[in-house]
């Protein structure tokens, strides 16, 4: 029965895609889409809640060795609930925010395909979080990647989008290879793919397994050095980014770490690796976000940084903290992306310096403010709570680690402030400016944003005494106790960050962006580096293709040369195609053929000589044979 949870959205997506084309092209169509999406997500949520309460599970047998199975753990439950919860407003938003790319010159048609894909995306993610074995996990894992490819490539007329989509897919698929290896290692060690049997895994296979899983998770959750793929993913429509970052694709990585935390931490090197990875990404991502001038890319870098914090928490031994931070981050980040999308519609650019829409869009600005402050870690907002827990978790490992984490958190305060002030500060645009004439945003988009902001506010209840412990019991996880000095330090750093952010914003208006800054803002030149790598690979394969044409095939082009000759003789076409081809074997046989023919001169005395020579040869061979 648990299968119904992922299958419902997947099938619904197919249905939407199938019948969507016949829907009316105006706002009625959007309304129908909205209703459908809301219905589907609500149904999914209902199914999940039923599943949680009555403890559904599901198995599907492929063969005696491969059995697909679904199950519900606390981590899966959290994800399974959060995903549709976040997705619903985002998809509704997208129904109004986007248009179908095929509609061409006429009236913008509702983005049926996009909505269908987003719905499918939710289904795939549900499948991912409910998977109880590696085959299922891998299926969902790659489906999520494929969905994101299609989503990023939504506006397919622009070749650049396709390139970015491919790039994002390839980077994450590179990580997927880790999962293939991990799954294979698990099978080799236990004879099964089920998570439940992982406990039997030991020795070098366990190491391989962990390495593969870490690779897969790190790539998905955009940790260094895979972070730049998130920038590429920005080519997709805004709602896609929102969903990708908040609840689905990127979240898959941290889900894997949380879900398999027990097995992963069975190797001693997992904790240091996870902490290093997380910390590096948090700091680097924070810096990038502080320097970015592109609204979505700023948020994307922030995503990497926040997931870095989650990695760190998991590495420090508190996967529950990571889980909670995922939830709080999901709401804030989704809200911020939607806000950024609305802002872009007004100024036709994602450039932060062009925005400052506070006066124009007060409601949106307020909602964005809530999310920004939460991201910044301002007490008593939701994300602040989980972030403090992360600082504390780091403190459990080492006090200096807590300090560094607090610094990273300060960075997030800085860029959150920067985003909020630049995008929705009080600036040039007011109600009177020319921007008014631009198409604004619909009520549905605003409602979606408000709902997410409200979610952030609601989650702020975590600060309420006792809620945190209750949650820990509910999820059967363990939260670290807060230490006062860490809290104070962290709050100080947040304040410092906000201050610095405000200062930076003031400076930013005047100053031009320097080269180094641009480079740093683009993940310290990592994409350039990887582009070089890709170029090298392409050159390699072109070279190999040429090699294959010329060298390896050389021995066989005998037939080719001959065939070309034949083609001349026979069909009088294909002439000269292989004239330049040099082929040793062919040449050899051909040469032998010519010699043999020429040897047959038609002159009797040559034949006689040949017979005499042949007789001599026979005699010689016989004599040698006799002597041997």
């Amino acid at each position, binding site marked *: 029965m648990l299968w119904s949870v992922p299958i419902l959205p997947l099938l619904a997506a197919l249905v939407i895609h199938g019948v969507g084309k016949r829907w009316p092209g105006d706002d009625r169509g959007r309304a129908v889409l909205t209703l459908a999406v809301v219905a589907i997500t609500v149904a999914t949520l209902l199914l999940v809640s039923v599943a949680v309460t009555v403890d559904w599970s599901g198995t599907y047998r492929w063969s005696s060795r491969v059995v697909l199975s679904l199950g519900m753990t606390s981590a899966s439950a959290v994800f399974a609930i959060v995903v549709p919860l976040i997705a619903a407003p985002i998809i509704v938003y997208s129904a109004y925010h986007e248009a179908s790319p095929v509609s061409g010159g006429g009236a913008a048609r509702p983005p049926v395909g996009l909505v269908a894909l987003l719905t499918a995306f939710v289904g795939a993610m549900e499948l991912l979080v409910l998977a109880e074995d590696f085959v299922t996990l891998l299926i969902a894992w790659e489906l999520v990647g494929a969905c994101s490819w299609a989503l990023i490539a939504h506006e397919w007329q622009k070749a650049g989008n396709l390139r970015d989509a491919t790039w994002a897919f390839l980077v994450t698929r590179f990580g997927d290879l880790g999962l293939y290896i991990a799954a294979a290692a698990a099978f080799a060690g236990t004879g099964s793919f089920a998570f439940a049997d992982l406990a039997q895994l030991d020795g070098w296979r366990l190491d391989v397994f962990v390495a593969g899983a870490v690779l897969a998770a790190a790539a998905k959750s955009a940790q260094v050095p895979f972070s730049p793929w998130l920038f590429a993913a920005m080519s997709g429509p805004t709602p896609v980014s929102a969903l990708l970052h908040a609840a689905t694709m990127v979240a898959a990585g941290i889900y894997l770490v949380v879900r398999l935390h027990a097995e992963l931490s069975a190797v001693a090197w997992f904790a240091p690796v996870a902490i290093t990875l997380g910390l590096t990404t948090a700091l680097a991502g924070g810096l990038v976000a502080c320097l970015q001038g592109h609204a979505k890319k700023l948020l994307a870098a922030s995503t990497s940084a926040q997931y870095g914090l989650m990695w760190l928490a998991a590495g420090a031994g508190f996967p529950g903290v990571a889980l909670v931070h995922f939830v709080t981050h999901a709401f804030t980040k989704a809200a911020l992306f939607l806000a950024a999308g609305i802002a872009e519609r007004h100024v036709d650019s994602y450039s932060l310096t062009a925005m400052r829409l506070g006066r124009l869009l007060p409601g949106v600005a307020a909602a964005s403010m809530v999310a920004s402050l939460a991201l910044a870690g301002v007490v008593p907002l939701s994300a602040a709570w989980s972030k403090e827990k992360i600082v504390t978790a780091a403190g459990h490992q080492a006090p200096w680690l807590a300090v560094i984490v607090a610094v990273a958190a300060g960075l997030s305060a800085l860029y959150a402030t920067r985003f909020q002030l630049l995008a929705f500060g009080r600036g040039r645009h007011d109600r009177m400016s020319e921007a008014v004439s631009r198409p604004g945003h619909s009520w549905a988009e605003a409602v979606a944003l408000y709902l997410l902001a409200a979610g952030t506010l609601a989650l702020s209840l975590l600060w309420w005494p006792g809620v945190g412990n209750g949650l820990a019991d509910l999820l059967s996880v363990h939260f670290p106790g807060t230490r006062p000095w860490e809290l104070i330090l962290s709050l100080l750093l947040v304040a410092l960050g906000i201050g610095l952010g405000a200062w930076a914003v003031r400076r930013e208006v005047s100053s031009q962006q320097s080269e180094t800054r641009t480079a740093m803002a683009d993940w310290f030149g990592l994409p350039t580096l990887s582009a070089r790598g890709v170029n090298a690979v392409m050159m390699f394969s072109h070279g190999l293709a040429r090699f294959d044409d010329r060298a390896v095939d050389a021995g066989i082009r005998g037939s080719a040369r001959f065939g070309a000759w034949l083609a001349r003789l026979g069909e009088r076409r294909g002439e000269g195609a292989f004239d330049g081809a040099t082929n040793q074997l062919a040449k050899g046989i051909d040469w032998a053929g010519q010699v043999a023919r020429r040897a047959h001169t038609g002159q009797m005395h040559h034949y006689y*000589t040949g017979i005499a020579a042949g007789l001599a040869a026979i*005699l010689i061979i016989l004599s040698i044979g006799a002597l041997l």
Partner: protein
Amino acid sequence: MESMNHGLGVDIAFLLLATLAVVTGWRVFRTDSMVRASFFLLVSFIAVGVIMILLAAEYLGVAMFFMMAVEMTVMALFMVMFMMNPAGLNPMNMVHQERIAIGAGVAGFLILGAMALLATFPDQPVPAGLEPVRSLGNEMLGESMLIFESAGLVLLTTMIGVVVLSSHRGRYGAAAEGSMPPGLEPGGDPAGKPEEDEAGEGGHHHHHHHH
């Protein structure tokens, strides 16, 4: 090998005949006239025939005389009729690849000579009192009847073949007329006529004096 009973005279005769056979054999290819060449060949054969008689194979020797005499006459006539340079009036030296030919001849002689000198053959001379002609007759009409008949058959075939090839006039007019492949299309030329035939006839010919 000295078991055969013969005297010094026989040896001397053999030596002379052998020299004669070799020298005339050699002269066959060293004369300007084909007619002379054929007579040199005849002499060589006759010398060998005499040696055969010395070896007590009288029948074979005599058969050789008659056969070769007839054959060489035919050959000489043939050459007078058909061939160039009938009387050796023009000097002729029509050889090719002479060095290779000499090499091959010498090699042949050396190999067979080595066999003559080095190989051991069973030492079983003709027993005294053997009547070669009688024994040959018995053999031909007895044990080797089939061989004898086969040889006859070969002769018959040769006769038919020779007639087919060389007769000038057949029962229905010129023998060679119409003796060619069917045309590629009815009434047309046959397929596969070599190109050289039209152009190259007589490229190495010095004379055409027949027809």
